């Protein structure tokens, strides 16, 4: 059993093809631009306001989830899609996460793991066995900067990333890019170096920052962090493009 707070049929952005994305509660990071603060806590939550108050998360069995995933099989097949586990950080509920991946793999359903890379290395073996493609966040470069922005030092996700790639895992690198917050030369440079070093990185998606609803934070009874960032203009994106090109990054695109 595990706590799922959303299940999106026909997700189009969570990996190749048409996907069924399962959102698991719990996340060890606290990214300052997080769009899913309702995922942070492991336990189900209710809003502090609203009539009736919204709730996030309830217990699901593996079979219950799979029954929904299976309903979209024909769309997975024609589009090259499958199941994506997201969150939060899906590995926070390690047993449930692995059980879902194993079940999907057992039925021949393509699997993606949308991860921030913060998980104990003893999960690696099993993850590599069941995950077809890692959607792997690369949030910032610099040990301290990463800690400041997410609460976790950069080496944690980086070590896992290197291990996955060295052991033949396939990775789609996803880089949220926030003007003035993480879009620095050294970050682009790190992205470029990774892309050249690892053919296992099948693509790099630069996700330009967009403001999310402040209402969700209020509903959760939390203060929205003040990031002080703007959404990037076209010119800004062009500059990113130029940096990536100049630094020799491969297989990237800006979404």
């Amino acid at each position, binding site marked *: 059993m595990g706590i799922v707070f959303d299940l*999106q*049929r*026909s*997700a*189009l*952005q969570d990996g190749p*093809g*048409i996907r*069924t994305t399962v959102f698991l509660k719990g996340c060890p990071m606290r990214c300052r631009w997080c*769009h899913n603060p309702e995922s942070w806590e492991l336990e189900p939550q209710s809003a502090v306001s609203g009539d009736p108050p919204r709730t996030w998360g309830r217990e699901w069995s593996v079979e219950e989830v799979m029954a929904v995933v299976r*309903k*979209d099989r*024909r*769309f997975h*097949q*024609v*589009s*090259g*899609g499958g199941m994506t586990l997201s969150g939060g950080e899906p590995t926070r509920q390690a047993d449930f996460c692995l059980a879902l991946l194993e079940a999907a793999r057992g039925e021949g359903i393509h699997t993606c793991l949308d991860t921030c890379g913060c998980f104990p290395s003893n999960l690696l073996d099993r993850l590599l066995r069941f995950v077809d493609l890692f959607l792997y966040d690369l949030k910032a470069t610099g040990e301290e900067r990463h800690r400041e922005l997410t609460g976790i030092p950069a080496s944690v996700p980086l070590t896992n990333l290197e291990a996955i790639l060295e052991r033949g895992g396939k990775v789609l690198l*996803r880089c949220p890019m926030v003007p003035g917050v993480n879009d620095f030369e050294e970050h682009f440079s790190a992205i470029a170096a990774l892309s050249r070093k690892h053919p296992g990185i099948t693509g790099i*998606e630069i*996700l*330009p*920052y*967009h*403001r*999310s*609803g*402040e*209402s969700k934070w209020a509903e959760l009874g939390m203060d929205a962090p003040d990031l002080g960032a703007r959404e990037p203009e076209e010119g800004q994106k062009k500059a990113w493009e130029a940096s990536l090109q100049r630094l020799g990054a491969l297989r990237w695109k800006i*979404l």
Partner: protein
Amino acid sequence: MPTLQKTALRPLATELEFTRVYRENRDVHPAIREWRCLEVLLPAFFQAMKPGDLFAGRIRHPLCGFSTQPGGFGYYCHEAAIRNVLESSPADAALREHVEAMLAFWRVENTTAKTRAAYPPWVSQALPVDSLAIVHPAYPLYRLGGTQLDYGRLLALGIPGMKAEVSRNFEGAEGGEAALGEALCGCLDLLADVARRYAGEIRDAGSAMGEVRSLAEALESLPNRPPRTFREAAQLFWLASWAAGSWNYGRLDEVLGPFLARDLDAGLLDEAAATDLLVSLWKLMDATVPCWDARIIVGGKGRENEEAGDRFALLAMEATRRARVIVPQLTLRFHDGQNPALMAKALDVLAEGVTFPMLYNDEVNIPAAAKAMGISEAEAVEYLPFGCGEYMLWKKGFATPSGAINLAKCLEIALNDGRCPISGKVMGPRTGEAASFASFEDLWRAYAAQVEYSVAALTAQEKIEYDTLGREAPCLFTTLLTDDCLSRRKAALRGGVRYLAGTLETYGNTDVADALTAIRAAVFENKTETMESLLTAMGNDWEEAEGLRKHLLALPKYGNDDDVADAMAARVHDHVCGFTRDQAAAVGLAYYLVVVINNSMNVALGKMVGALPDGRKAGDPLANGNNPVAGRDRQGVTAFLNSLVKLRTDHHAGAVQNMKFSKSMFTAHRPKLEALLSGYFAAGGAQAMLTVVNRGDLEAAMRGPEKWGHLMVRVGGFSARFVELPNDVQRHILERTLNE
């Protein structure tokens, strides 16, 4: 022959002259009478060209005349409109007297009145009203619609050849048959006259423009020989379709494709010029035909001229992209192995925010139509969606949608012992007080009885309507352009057409399903509510019962791939489709089938239905076609598509599915859109009307979020449900959509 300019001088001159001629010929054979009436009508009907027209054939319907559908039903007279003309004309006692006499004459003599007079008592009891503005569960519709005629033979033979064909078939005919043959030849002469007149008007106008001059030449040739060029062929088609009053055009790629291909290959036309011609024809259709007609079908199985047809289809789609008009309703049929360029072009055109072509899956529709219509698959390859989506058989069948039933209203009166809670009137059989229903099945039986009562009456009505019109007139041009009529020497409605059939428009199907799911759960299974308290809350349109309404809204709804809700939708669907199909034999129709279509009637009829047990508010629009109730499909597009394909397709004559996608699905995510469609079609999806989400949709969603829960948009790297985004983000997306 008189020209339009002259006849327009005196108000109502055409109408009075037409009436005089009709009265003079009242007792001669109906074929001769119709011919003589057409002699008056056609010259007044066809109007002068306007600058920029590349084809001749604008029209004006006289206020009193003869028509299959566009002007009115059979011999018709629009009294209110005529009185308006009279009011605004200079006082003229003699004219007034004539007009009053004319109106009095037509009040009993018009074909609609004669149809109604022919109803047996049980039919008129079940169908007491003809106006869609009056609250009732069922309505007869008066028209001979549903014709998609055979222009191929006319274009192959030309007007003179067609006359010879008539003469050959009617050789040695006597009596009524001879009269029919004579009138058919006569009406071809009238058509030739129209072409000559237009040619003369162009020459008289003395235009030096080359375009128009070659049009005059084309028109001059039509009375004398078969069309030789695309332009001549399209011109003859256009005039003939209006002469017949048939405004859904069938497989034009089959009919016009060979002419087009020949001209292109011979260098008489290049693709740009051909597209210009089509754009001009499209604009004429747009100026003359209402938005729910003017179907043109391209693609599909069973085409003899497939290659030429494909070329026509591609240019037709390009014309649709360029013309940006409401009609024609260009329709692409497709099947495995069809030239993939057609579907690719269709998606390109749709990506630009055009609503056509609509897509029809032959792999599903041909076997389904064969089964539903009781014909072979070889014949069913000629299925054609008409108007709002009713399947007809090209050239050899009529299945006019001659009735409409409001299923939501049927449920409402079933919950009130046959009484309409809004007006208090009894509108159906007394099926018992809802509070006395011991089980859900009791309620179901009451609902089913209400539906069956109306459907049976509408089936009988359809046949009476055909028979009445058939007695009044042979519908000469329709007969001329319908398979088998000439060889059988019979008027289309008197044994000429091979399949005389019917269709019944149903509305509120999904609303009924959701309502029944909710009432079964709340009243009979979970017993959280009594029938009385539910009916009271509905009677008050949920005032002071918002909590109950929320509870009901949260119960399973069709469109979410939910087995319980979808099974109820299938039950409602199978009931009305199956019962309707089984009625045809009783009245002698080839088939009589339900259609679940898409037009504005779901809004109009929704206004006449009070609150429903699924939480719907009084007066809300009913669901559109086979779609979920607006905003209730919230599990994503795959769930929505899975729900759709749970409804059988082989016992009705067409159901319409609307799907909206964001622009990026047609562009950046095109392979995913294609995958969604192929998954849906492979799973049994019959049809899709795809549109791009536009600014208007987003604004509507901001105003009324409850109806737009299904709308997904892209925000950064994520998809989000539009209505759940905060206001400022919504506004931002709105701006972006403008630019896409």
